[in-house]
């Protein structure tokens, strides 16, 4: 019985510690953003690394996500033979929900995990302390460019992802269900609103912020050598995934 209490208490303490650390980190990030001193070269390097290198995986993910969405939407439509709403249902589901969600989870695995591993390795090999000795604030030099480039690139990748998903969905709807691409496109352009698209974009930006902040926070607070880096990567992807779902819920509820 005492062991049960100890475990529950330990878990609660651990969660509070993590949440507290993340909150403080977020606070530090936003206060630093008021007066940013960003190294231009580091910024470009990160934009390239985060954006260009994630492009293939995002495109492939979106292509298949589009196919999955088209099949699922068609399952509903098939009962009523209402082929002219496939495009609408598809666009709604993908633009608002599946696109940002799947691209975000992929982005978190690809970029977030890599980022935590990199910062964590720098931390345990005392490179971050070395930066401090050189009077370079690691928050401005390392964290700001990373978080900013993740927000920017996640938003842009979501646009490309939406386009790829649309292609994948149209193709799947044509091959599997026999929905004419022209009919699909018409119903898509007719009923899918700009607000659906923008809703997804807001989500993508929020997911980028969550992934950036959490992956940097866990990387900068690594303790305990190489094993600590592994633990931090695991904790960071878990936190990012939870953050994605929580943000998704909040944005859905607020923007309707």
């Amino acid at each position, binding site marked *: 019985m005492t062991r049960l209490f100890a475990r529950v208490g330990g878990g609660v303490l651990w969660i509070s510690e993590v949440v507290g650390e993340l909150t403080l980190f977020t606070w530090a990030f936003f206060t630093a953003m008021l007066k940013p001193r960003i190294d231009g070269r580091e910024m470009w390097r990160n934009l390239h690394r985060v954006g260009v*290198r994630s492009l*293939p*995986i995002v495109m*492939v*993910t979106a292509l*298949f*996500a589009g*196919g*999955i969405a088209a*099949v*699922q939407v*068609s*399952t*509903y439509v*098939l009962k009523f033979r209402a082929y002219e709403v496939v495009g609408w249902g598809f666009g*709604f589901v993908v633009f*608002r*929900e599946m696109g940002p969600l*799947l691209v975000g*989870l*992929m982005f*978190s*695995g*690809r970029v977030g*995990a*890599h980022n935590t*591993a*990199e910062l*964590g*390795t720098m931390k345990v090999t005392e490179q971050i302390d070395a930066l401090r000795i050189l009077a370079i604030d690691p928050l401005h030099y390392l964290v700001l460019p990373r978080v900013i480039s993740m927000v920017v690139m996640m938003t842009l990748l979501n646009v490309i992802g939406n386009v790829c998903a649309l292609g994948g969905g149209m193709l*799947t709807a044509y091959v*599997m*269900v026999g929905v004419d691409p022209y009919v699909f496109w018409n119903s898509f352009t007719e009923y899918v609103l700009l607000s659906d698209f923008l809703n997804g974009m807001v989500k993508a930006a929020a997911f980028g912020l969550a992934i950036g902040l959490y992956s940097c926070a866990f990387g900068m607070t690594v303790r305990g*050598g*190489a*094993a600590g*880096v*592994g633990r931090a*990567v*695991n904790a960071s*992807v*878990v936190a990012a*995934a*939870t953050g994605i*779902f*929580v943000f*998704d*819920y909040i944005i*859905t*509820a607020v923007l*309707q």
Partner: protein
Amino acid sequence: MAEPLTVREIIADVFQQGRDTLRVGRETVYYIFNGRRDRAAVWEQLAQLGNRSLIFILVTQGFLGAIMLLQAGFQATRILGDASLIGAQAIPLLVRQLGPTLTAMMIATRAGTGIAAEIGSMVVTEQVDALRMCNAPPVDHLIKPRLLASLVMVPVLTIVGTAAAFFAGMAVAAIVFQTNPSTYANFDVLVGLDVVEGLLKSVAFGIAIPLVAGTAGLSAYGGSEGVGEATTRAVVASSLAVIVLDFLIGSGVFLFR
């Protein structure tokens, strides 16, 4: 391994990883029938995989169910002016598609990184070579218990996660859309094929995740950075495997429908 950059390099990389995974899979199947019988190792992996992912799955799938019901409910009230049927329409989608896929993606995130990091650090510290020297095949000792455990645990966690999403959806339907829980829990539209599709997917994901993540771990090299790289590869590749399998099985069942 250098980061693949050109299209040709990426395709070559994907094929290489796919071939390695298939090879490991073949070896695993061989050792399942001919290898040693180690119940303790399987039990340990069952505990690792199941217990450590449970709360994470409950939280994320709960939010998933809530998000889904919000989206569906807003549309239903806008178009039909009545949200009482959302439960009946949402439950099949949850059972055959969103529940299995997102649970598996979360397991790929939570357990896939764990598998790759553990095996990867064993590789770079030469413990895997030591196993080989003792005539103990690494696939038999490391991959097989994980595969058997995940074959059991991924479907179990899928059921738990889908249930969590169902109840979170019920709460949202009751609080936001004033739908009676008994009206929400309408299983009329759900057919047996939906359940079969969901379980089929979860079994396929249960096979794919440990194989892909384990292969990524076994191909790690070069110190702690190599372990980090293997971990990243494991998450990306196993999530992608989940999405591709989802597409294939979903399309197959759709044609069967």
